[in-house]
């Protein structure tokens, strides 16, 4: 049983929930940028929440099915079509052997997650099927899906069609998008005024945003406190002696354009990070279109933990809804 890729779209990769545990060796966590959408898509088609799905950025693929399957598309709204007939997003639908699934234009969000009953069954690498492109790990022989690929599918006990995720349990960023940031270890390097400006200014998502990092433009440049650069740090005031980066950390090279490190990001380096986007908001970043106005909101650790617990509850609600 397999699915044939007639057209891969723009950037379509195989992703699951990721490859944690190797970041200290420089191998990023990878996995879907919007993992809530990965889980929702899988639950809709009766898969384990961590089965491998397709992540399509901005444009959907064209897929030909060799056998009957149940399919669901979640996350960014790129409406699927079965033999040209539109189907709802966030809702399971049946595809018969020989039918072709294609997609309309992106309407909201940025990345659609396409789950197929049985899950995509390409070989695992370090316990995950997620594609890490620049490391050539996972996916289809380390790459994105391409024309003519036959994607193998796992066994499925079958899943009904028509199950849907209620509107209140679908999650996409607003406009302006709001991302909550917990100031971090290197916050002390910038002036108080720069810190205020960072949270006051409206930023815009830069078009070069990708799975490694999402860059923003349009806010005022940061000013740094006077200091003598320590031994081992570069000469620019945004340089530090190399440190660790976390998933979500916000680096600002040269003090000009913040970059939020995402699933395929590097694990350390010599730019200061002013803080990190809280875990509860990381999925939203995967759904930001280029040029989306964005505000950063300062939160405390307590607020971050409350938001994390709220997110966990939302997922529990989704699970009981689709149980």
């Amino acid at each position: 049983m397999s699915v044939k890729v007639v057209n891969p779209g723009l950037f379509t990769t195989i992703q699951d929930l990721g490859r944690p545990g190797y970041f200290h060796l420089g191998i990023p966590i990878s996995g879907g940028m919007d993992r809530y959408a990965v889980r929702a898509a899988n639950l809709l088609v009766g898969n384990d929440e961590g089965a491998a799905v397709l992540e399509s950025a901005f444009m959907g693929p064209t897929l030909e099915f060799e056998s009957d399957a149940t399919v669901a598309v979640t996350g960014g709204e790129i409406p699927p079509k079965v033999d040209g007939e539109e189907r709802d997003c966030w809702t399971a639908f049946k595809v018969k052997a020989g039918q072709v699934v294609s997609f309309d234009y992106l309407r909201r969000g940025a990345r659609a997650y396409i789950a197929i009953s049985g899950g995509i069954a390409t070989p695992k690498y370090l316990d995950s099927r997620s594609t890490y492109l620049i490391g050539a790990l996972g996916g289809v022989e380390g790459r994105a899906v391409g024309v003519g690929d036959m994607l193998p599918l796992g066994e499925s006990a079958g899943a009904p069609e028509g199950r849907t995720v209620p509107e209140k349990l679908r999650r996409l960023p607003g406009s302006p998008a709001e991302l909550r940031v917990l100031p971090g270890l290197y916050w002390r390097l910038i002036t108080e005024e720069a810190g205020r400006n960072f949270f006051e200014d409206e930023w815009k998502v830069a078009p070069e945003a990708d799975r490694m990092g999402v860059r923003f433009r349009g806010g005022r440049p940061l000013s740094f406190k006077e200091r003598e650069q320590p031994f081992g740090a570069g000469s620019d005031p945004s340089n530090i002696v190399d440190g660790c980066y976390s998933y979500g950390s916000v680096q600002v090279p040269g003090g000009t354009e913040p970059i939020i490190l995402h699933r395929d990001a590097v694990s350390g380096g010599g730019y200061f990070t002013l803080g990190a986007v809280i875990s509860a908001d990381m999925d939203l970043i995967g759904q930001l279109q280029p040029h989306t106005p964005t505000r950063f909101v300062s939160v405390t650790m307590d607020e971050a933990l409350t938001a994390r617990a709220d997110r966990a509850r939302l997922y529990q609600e989704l699970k009981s809804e689709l149980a």
Partner: protein
Amino acid sequence: MAEIRSPIPGTFYRRPSPDEAPYKEVGDTVAVGEVVGLVEVMKSFIEVKADTAGTITAFKVENEEPVTAGAVLAELDG
């Protein structure tokens, strides 16, 4: 009247590079599959191609302006 739409969101360019002439001007004819511009997203430049032939009557988006997926970039007569 036919329309040429952007397949993806990003930044629209009418020229192959900053110091070259635009791919097409109003009044030019286009053939099926001919490139009329580029959209930049995720460090890639994606060619926008006409899927019908005709004469360009208007560009609906300026050079280097942001576009959304499905946005009309140009209108064609014929």
